[in-house]
């Protein structure tokens, strides 16, 4: 299933790497989940833009408190995975709990 694929951490990591590589104009192979935002040269505006891009792509919300502590690609991917997992699975399940 497509949703199951998206939820795989590795895929999310690769997606983050691709977004950052495009934004900073660096080859994706120079980045890894361990790369910190400082190493990559991601400033505060780049970071909020990245957050916007992933929120749009996964239809999630990354809370300010979580974003403030994220300082590398792996942590960003983990936060995305967590937010995706916390999403209601179907509109039906939302209705049934309402």
């Amino acid at each position, binding site marked *: 299933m497509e949703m199951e694929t998206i939820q795989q951490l590795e895929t999310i990591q690769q997606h983050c790497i691709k977004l950052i590589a495009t934004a900073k104009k660096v080859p994706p192979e120079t980045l890894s989940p361990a790369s910190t935002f400082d190493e990559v040269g991601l400033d505060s505006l780049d970071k909020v833009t990245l957050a*916007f891009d992933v929120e749009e792509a996964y239809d999630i919300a990354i809370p300010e408190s979580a974003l403030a502590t994220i300082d590398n690609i792996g942590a960003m991917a983990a936060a995305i995975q967590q937010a995706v997992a916390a999403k209601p699975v179907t509109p039906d399940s939302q209705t049934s709990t309402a």
Partner: protein
Amino acid sequence: MRRVAITGMGCVTAIGIGTERFFRALREGRDGFLPLSEEERVGLNFSSTARVDDFQPDKLLSPDQMLLSERSSQFALVAAHEAIEQSGMPATLDGSRIAVVFGCSAGGRMAEEPALEKLYTQGARVHPLTVPRAMANAGTSLVSMEYGITGPAYTVSTACASATHAIGQAFHMVRSGMVDAAVTGGHDAPLTFGFLRAWNSLRVVSPTFCRPFAKDRDGMTLGEGSGVLVLEEMEIAERRGAQVLGEIVGFGMSSDARHITQPAPSGPAAAMRRALLDCGELRAPVRYINAHGTGTLVNDGTEAEAIHMVFAEETGRIPVSSTKSTHGHAMGASGALEAVATVLALQHGELPHTAHASEIDPELGLDVITGEPRRIERNSEPVLALSNSFAFGGLNAVLAFRSV
């Protein structure tokens, strides 16, 4: 007193990108009014705007600049590039001794309006670059970043007089010695769905086309664009062998303090008088007025009255034209386009005519240039030209240019 030379100019306009194409269109009286599409004109009393049709920013700006900018500030970057190239300035001057002062009335609506439309109608997220792209000072900031200009830098917003106020402030800064040079002018790109409808409601936009001072004038044509001038202290400019295109010698400002939209002649007259007084010993005979000339019944009548108040019996001998009849009313950028037009007129000794105005309103009592450009009557003596800008809110600004 220090003198202030103009050593570079650039523009992005509905009648051409670059001062050469701009001047050619002015000479030909060729307008840049383009029809709106069927969809765009729904609910409007007008059907055309003065749009910059052939602007391709991605060919002129870096990917980083494209990311951080929107149409209005992109206009500013492109016009500044042309002006600075012509002046040769950045290689020769210390960035901390240079100012950037731009006028911008509407801000970056092309970034803001679509984002808010999606927010209001679809609950969409708003992109984090919306604010930096839409802020009115984006043009000033991007130009200062591009050229390493670290002196005073700010944006003036006084509606339709924004650029004239900006150029006047920059002129005073160079003249006073606060800085040695300035990059100044204005930019606006406000022709969004909402903006057109807001102006439509004011019922001052022409259902046909802008023809200032004409007997049958029926309003303005909304436009967009950017004009930029490089100002330098005269001795510094001459020492480095810069070509001096013209000189700014006076600047006057006033407020009507009466009505939020309806102009009063006393305010514009005071601004013209103050601009002439500000010329001091550089005062010369006024041989041209580039009018605010929006083409509305009220503006043109009031402006004519103000010119009579200042020049009395001399009025009929001073040629007047409004170049808004070709480049449209570019809002906060208007004063900059008209400053460029005025300097070009003095440089070439040829005054642009008011296009489309075939029969001039005799009530106005002005010598309005129509039909074709007119040669400036002059000997070898320098002459002055005024450029008027009068904003909604009653805020008036007038620049006095002197021929070289």
